[in-house]
Structure formats: C-alpha cells, structure tokens
C-alpha cells in the first residue's frame, strides 16, 4: 500500500513537472536614454515612454532605464531597474517606486561630454540575459550619433542574439540637414551592426504610436 502511494505521488509529480512550461513568457525591457548635449532636451519625451512601459508591462516582466554617458558600460548608469513581482498588487507598488526614481532623474539630469551607445547596449544585453526574459527589448532613445572618449574601444561586433533593438526618436542633427545621407548612413550602420550581432532592428520616430514598441 505504501509502495502504491509512493508510486502515485511520484507519478503525479512527474505529470505536474511535465506540464510546467519551461519557456519564459516574461518580457525584459532595457531603455537607454541619451543625455548628451542637445539631446538632453528630449528626456521629457522619454519620460512619457517610460510611463507607457510601466502601464503596459505585466507581473513577472523586467524593466530597466539607464543613461548613455561618456562610458555607459557600467551599472552606475542604471537609473532604475526592477523585475516586477508575480502579484499584481505588489507590481503596482513597484511601478510607483520606479516612476518616482525616473521623475527624480529627469528633474536632475545633466548632459555628458561623450555618447557611448555601444557600451550602453552591452550593459543592456548583460542585464536582459540575467533576467532570463523570454522576449528582450533594448530601446535606444538617442540620435544614434556615437562620440567616444579617447582610448575607449567599441569597434567590435556585439552579441545581440534574441534581442529586439528599437531606436526611438532618432532626431536629425544640424549636419544631417546639410547632407541627409549622413542620417541614413548612421541609421543603416547601426542596423547592420545590430543585425550582424543576431538582433532585430526597428526605428520608431512617431512617438504617438507607442503601442508599436512592444508589438512584435
């Protein structure tokens, strides 16, 4: 009788473990905010995007917001990061806290001398891989003009397999207006770099259509 009971328990536990889904359905979003030079003015727009993300992301999802400065491959640049709790009520509290941190950053943001986008992307990939999210998004809120400090090496391929990289609000620079080919060249160069690393590239400049950010 005891043997039968033990066997039944083992069988049921095997069945249950067989039913458990091993694939992760959670989403991980890492947003990079460019705070360099003239782009600093655009940070208010980024705040709206972050609020949209906070309203959209579900319990169990992860969200991190980091700034792009002269050397972005660092945890110090992360403004706020959070993996939301499984319970909706706790998630709501976490979202309130997250919003508060972002608001504080927006109020005190300072411009940086250089723009290390590659370092920020590397940091994003590292974070997203750690969260174990099923779907990974790297949102780059920048004009995509990378300016590196001397001695910083960033001209190597980046591993972005499984990541969807979305460039948001890629503004045209003064020089782009003189020669628009520069803008297209810049965007295409980033696209080529992301796709070479196994990532999926998209550009969204119309911030009225925020619902398309996490659409695919």
């Amino acid at each position, binding site marked *: 009788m005891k043997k039968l009971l033990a066997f039944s328990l083992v069988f049921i536990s095997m069945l249950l473990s067989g*039913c*458990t*889904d091993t*694939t992760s*359905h*959670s989403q991980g979003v890492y947003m990079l905010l460019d705070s360099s030079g003239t782009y600093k003015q655009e940070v208010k727009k980024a705040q709206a995007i972050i*609020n*949209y993300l*906070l*309203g959209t992301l*579900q*319990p*169990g*999802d992860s969200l991190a917001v980091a700034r792009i400065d002269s050397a972005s491959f660092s945890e110090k640049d992360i403004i706020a990061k959070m993996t*939301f709790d*499984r*319970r*909706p*009520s706790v*998630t*709501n509290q976490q*979202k*309130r806290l997250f*919003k508060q941190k972002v608001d504080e950053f927006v109020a005190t943001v300072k411009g940086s001398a250089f723009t290390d986008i590659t370092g920020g992307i590397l940091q994003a990939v590292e974070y997203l891989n750690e969260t174990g999210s099923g779907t990974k998004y790297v949102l780059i809120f920048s004009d995509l003009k990378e300016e590196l400090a001397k001695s910083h090496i960033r001209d190597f391929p980046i591993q972005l397999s499984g990541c969807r990289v979305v460039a948001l609000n890629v503004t045209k620079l003064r020089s782009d207006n003189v020669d628009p080919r520069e803008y297209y060249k810049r965007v295409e160069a980033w696209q080529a770099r992301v796709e070479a690393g196994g990532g999926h590239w998209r550009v969204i400049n119309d911030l009225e259509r925020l619902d398309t950010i996490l659409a695919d």
Partner: protein
Amino acid sequence: MSLAHILNIWPHSPALSLIIALLGAVFLLYLARKPAHKAIFSLSRVIHNGFRMITRSVLIAENKVVERNKEVLLTAGERAAEQLIEREFHRVDAVVRRDMSGYPALQRVLAEQIAHIDEDYRESTELPVPPPDWVKAVETLAKLPSREDKWVANILGEIHKTAVAQYKNAMEEYRKAVAKRHALLEKMMPYWRKLSQTLDQVDKTIIGLHERTRVVDSRMTEYQEIQKKTDREAGRLRASSTTQFFISAFVLLIAIGGAVVNFNLIALPMSEMVGGGSYIGNFKTSNIAALVIILVELAMGLYLMESLRITHLFPIIGQMDDKMRTRMIWATFIILLILAGVESALAFMRDRIAADMQALRQALSSVETAQPTIRWIPTVGQMVMGFILPFALAFVAIPLESFVHSSRTVVGVVMAAVLRLIAFALRLLGNAAHYSGEFLVNIYDLLIFPALWLETLIRNKGQQTEGKDVTDIQDIIVKEEVS
C-alpha cells in the same frame, strides 16, 4: 519518343512528318480498336460496380442508423411515458392516502351528524293534541231541550267559561311545544351545514381523482402507441427530441455566457494567489485556476442535481440508498457554498486590484479624474454576482442532461442524412463512370474516324460486288431452266 523525333520522321518537313505520325497512330488505334473498347468498357463497369457496391453498403449503414434512431427514440419515449404514468399514479396514491385514509373517520362523523339530525327530527315531530274528555259531556248538554231554562243556561255558561279557560291553556301549551320544536329544528342547521361541507369535500376529492384518472388514461394511450412502434409515433418523438435539442442548446449557451462572466470575475484576483506571470503551456496559470474553480462548481452542481434525483446522468448516484444520497446532497451543497463564498471574496479582491490599477494608470498619465462618489455599489454587485453565479451554474445539469439525450437522436438523424447524401454522390459517380466509358469509346472512334470511314467504304463496295455476282448467278440459273 519526343515531339522533336516525331517531327523529324521526314527530314526537313515537319508537317509531313506529323501527318505520317498521325496516320500511323490512327492505323495503330484502328488495329487496337476492339481490345481498347473492351478495356474501356470493362474499366467503366468495374468502377460502376464498385461504386454500386459501396452505395449499397452505405445505404445498409444508413438503414441501420435509421433503425437505431427509431429504437433509441421509442425506448426514450417509452421510458418517459412510463415515468409520467408512474408520477400520475404516485399523485393518485397521494390523493388516496391523504383523503381516502380519512374516510372511516369521515364516515363516523357523517353517522354521528345523521344521528343528531335524526334525533332532533324525532324530537321535533308534532304530536296530535288529545281531544278533551269533556267535549262529549258538552255535546250531551248542548242537546238538552229546555234551553231557556235559567239553570241550564247557568250551567252552560259555566261550562263555556271553563271551556274557554281550557282552550287558552291548551293553546298556550301548544305554542310552547311548537316553539320547542322550532328551536330543535334550528339546532339541526349547523349539522346540516357541516354535512353539506363534508359532502362537498368528498365531491372535490372524487372529481380530482377523476381528472387524474383521465390524465392516466391519456398517458396510457400514448404509451400503447409507443409500444406499437409506429412510424407516426417515432416522427412525433423525433420532432419533440429536436425541439428539446435546440432549447437545451440555447440554455447551455446562456450558461456558457454566465461561465464567461464568472471567469472574468475571478481570473484577475487568481493572479494574486497563483502569480500573474506563471504559465502552463501557453495559458496563464491564473486563468487555468479560475477555469478549474468554475469547472469544479459545475461538477458539484451536477452531483447535487443527481443526488436530488432531478437529473439521471450518473446511475450510480441515483442507485444510492437514501441515507447516503442525503449525505451527498449536503456534501455537494456545502462545497458549492464554500466555493460561492470564495468567489465572492475573489470578486471583492478583483474590485480592489482594478481600483489600484486605475489609480496607477492615472498617476502614470498625470491625469486627475474625479473619484466616483458611490464606490460600494459595483463592489457589492460583483460580490453578489460572485456568490450567486456558482448556484446558477449548478442548474446547468438540467439542460445538459436534456442536451445529451436529445443529441443522441439529432446526431443520428444528421448521420443518416449524411449517409444518404454520400450514397447519392456515390451512385452519381458510378453512373458517371458508366457513361464516361461509353463517351470514351465514342471519342476513340472519333479519333480514328478516317480508318472507320475507309472500312465502311470498303465493306459497302464488297457488298455491292457480292450482290452483283449473286444476280449474275441467278440469271444463269433462270436461263438454264428456260432452255
């Protein structure tokens, strides 16, 4: 052989090569005409016969399905009629037990009332007043001859006074006796009324019983008709079953709507219990948990209805002894009650979570909206819905049983129709195969028409030559005979 080879039979002249090739083909086809016709005919016959055989099998299957349907319908109808008759008999039994069991007492009451009435009646009968003895003496004195005699007149006067006094006394006593009789008769009135009421009650009972017996008679007639297994009765039962099918399907759809509302009521708060981000397969665990709760409620409802003997989907529950059945009723009812309480609590939690989410969204969008003044109404409404829906879903067992029973016949009817359609299509294909054989033979002959034309020409010529030879021979014979 490719087309290039064919066109190169006669070098540098493709048209000629093609004509040669066609003539060769026609010649070959002409040579193979009879075997080819036989092959085409045999192939079409094989296909035709094959289809015919399949059609016959399908029709046999259709007949079996129709027979089975009829059997199922009649059995179900017979069972239903039996149950109805049984119920009517139970009602008659209840009436007899309730009313007829009181008949000895009723009879005693009636006898007592009649005895009372009889006694009162006897007492109230009018007794004739005995004629006074002195009447004869008065008559004798009245016949005396000397009426003018003073003494006699005095005596008569005295007698008259006495008679008047006597008369008054007698009348007084008579009136008293009459008044007493009237009082007695008045006392009889309530007894009469009571007797009348008792008899009215008996009359009502008898009329009720009479009506029940008429219902039993009509049910018995139906039952006998079903037992005769006539097509008319099967048709009537089929129509009834189809109606039941659609009605129960409609009610089930309503119940599904209720289940969906119930699901939405508890799915969100379930994520607070089992986690909003966990999945089983492609489905959220919280959704599955909510669905399981609803299904458990449905199952409990089914068991409750079975235990109450309202439905008969599980014979094992119906066959339980009454004690066990009562225990089961209580157990399922308590589980349903607990689940209703849980759902009510979840509905409350849902309201709170939804309000919190709403507040968060407002904070994120930086839009200040006015708070609703009466917040408790939707909360209470959701809680009441959460409590009532499990009990409402429990009653799904009734249309479900009806749907299951009626779907047997409806599915049978549909299956028979499909089989008939298949048989028709197969027969059509068989006939098409048969006539396409003839058509192919005609096409074959059309392809080799030059050869056939030549054949006919040669044959006609031969026949003419033979005819001419025969005429010459006949002429010679005639000439020889003449000579």
